């Protein structure tokens, strides 16, 4: 692609990716569907909950990801305290030989919202242990700044609670996070359909992580294809310079110099 429709690579945690769509694997109906989702999405990174998958087991989700050359981003889903999350990250590093981790420390089962205090504590500890930390956080710009300051390699604010499909509920906060961040911003959680993913990129996010919206869709590979295009569209639109919104109409064709046809 040339010039105006070029998609720049995504630089994330010392890696480069062509795709700005990261995939969450939770909720995938089966491994055959996952293969088709991987092909349709073009995703190069997939998160896997290390508490839910035995890395030694053969024929598992990890084998499918390896066959498709998709990089595994281990996450700490299911952790409620900083101590649990740090331990889980260390086990993941040992099992997978990776240096990065998507840090999740949730406050309760009902909302699965990040616990800000435990999250910051765990992020600080893991950064000190040499991890490249990608924290799943609320859409609070102040917390995002703290996470960046303790050394996180990216921030991953939510659009809405995990699995809710409610879209981006506070676009303004996401814009504030984007505006101040010097690390990549990855919109994580809340995406319901393709337009939500496009909006994330239009707001200036560097990438989007989508799980349930694809894995629990009626036709997961079709939704994966839609998300891939939405992310590309949002990225291009952000750089294309959108028109300012107006209250009243402005004709798209000139109203003077019309040909006299009669």
């Amino acid at each position, binding site marked *: 692609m040339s010039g105006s429709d070029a998609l720049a690579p995504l630089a994330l945690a010392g890696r480069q990716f062509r795709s700005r769509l990261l995939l969450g694997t939770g909720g995938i109906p089966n491994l055959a569907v996952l293969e088709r989702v991987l092909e349709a999405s073009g995703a190069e990174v997939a998160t896997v909950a290390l508490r839910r998958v035995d890395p030694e087991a053969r024929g*598992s989700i990890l084998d499918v990801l390896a066959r498709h050359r998709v990089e595994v981003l281990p996450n700490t889903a299911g952790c409620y305290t900083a101590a649990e999350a740090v331990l889980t990250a260390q086990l993941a590093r040992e099992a997978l030989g990776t240096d990065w981790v998507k840090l999740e420390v949730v406050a309760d089962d009902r909302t699965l919202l990040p616990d800000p205090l435990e999250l910051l504590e765990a992020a600080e500890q893991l950064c000190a242990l040499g991890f490249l930390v990608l924290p799943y956080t609320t859409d609070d710009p102040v917390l995002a700044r703290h996470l960046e300051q303790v050394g996180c390699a990216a921030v991953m604010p939510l659009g809405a609670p995990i699995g809710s499909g409610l879209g981006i509920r506070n676009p303004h906060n996401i814009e504030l996070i984007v505006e101040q961040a010097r690390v990549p911003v990855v919109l994580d959680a809340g995406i319901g359909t393709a337009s939500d993913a496009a909006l994330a990129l239009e707001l200036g996010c560097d990438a989007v992580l989508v799980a349930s919206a694809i894995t629990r869709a009626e*036709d997961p590979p079709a939704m994966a294809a839609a998300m891939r295009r939405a992310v590309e569209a949002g990225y291009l639109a952000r750089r294309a310079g959108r028109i300012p919104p107006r209250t009243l109409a402005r004709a798209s064709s000139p109203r003077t110099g019309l040909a006299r046809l009669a």
Partner: protein
Amino acid sequence: MPSSPTRSAVTPSAPPLDLLGPPLDPVGSLRRTDVVVLGGGIIGLAAAWSLAEQDHQVVLVDPAPLSGASWVAAGMLAPVSELHAAEAPLVGLGLAALEHWPAFAQALTEASGLDLGLRTEGTVLVAATPDDHRALLELLDLHRRLGLASQPLTRREARQLEPGLAPGLAGALLIPGDHHVDPRLVARALALAARRAGVRWVAAAGSALRCRRGAVEGLVLDSGVHLDAPAVVLAAGWRSAAVDGLPPTLRLPLRPVKGQILRLATRTGTVEGPRHCIRALVEGAPVYLVPRRSGEVVLGATSEEQGADPTPTAGALYELLRDAVAVVPGVRELELTEVGVGHRPATPDHGPLVGPLPAGSGADGLVLAVGHHRNGVLLCPITAEAVRAAVEGDPLPDALGPFGPTRFSPDLGGATLEAWTPLPEGPAPR
């Protein structure tokens, strides 16, 4: 001090191996037989029984029959409530398999003289929260589009059918055609029927398939003993791929999917157990309660990608009980009798691999009956019929057509299942 009677509250009971008869040493006439069945779960036992009923000499090879998934399974015959939009091809197989059940149950009851605990009251699907109710209505929509019998219930109707349901539930469906059976009674009946039909049991593991000139010659046991047979049925669950000597072009992508399951029991003088099989969504998590006439209630189950890990965990039991109590509060009063852990034999698309290897595959005479995942009990009769047909050269049941044994083996001409078949009348945009 007087000793109080104790019992181990949560240790699974042992399978009824006495019904299968004593294991035999493979000597003399045992060394040469018509069919060797490797694997003595209900799939292998049903196949062995079906073949022996047709006067084939059958030797069953398993160091510990019925010790695998069969013995912990809940026994739901529930293709409609199991339906998942992304796995629509499985529902056709499930419905066809269900049609095989009545005749199978009758024949097995006649052959064994034992009851199977088959119950046909239907299954009640329950949504705990408004979010779960939306998911249930989507499933109802899918049922309608596929022409499957499914009936929405008001909360009052649901609680008339099942008075033990919690008052605050968000909604319910009745699936009249989804039944259940007690797999442990089925296992007992199969063991007895197989023995009566002349199936002989060798307590050994199979270590290698032996082939010559492109055809099966028999099985080598872990003791080194050879069993000669022109037909070998592979029915060893998720361990099946570990057998040596399979054709190198045959890909058997089987993996264990761990399930934790509880067995509870009603106690006299306290609450009744449920009347129907109840399957619920609680904050998005599935849980089921399957009642038996004996008063047993099976509560399940987790689905974990933890390899062959046999450990029961506190968190899984907590979540199963928490969700079950949310749906049926009286579960609190039941006795906890067993904590079971089993491993479903899963393929990448969750469909089974059933049928004879095609000519030219290098193992003529090898029949696969593996990969039944969550549906081993439901698929048991149709699989047994398919194995009988394969050994006798008859056509297999049509519904098994897409689930052939070489589905994951491109070098054997296998074509993978279309993982997602477009459903009729797409969903209304939301």
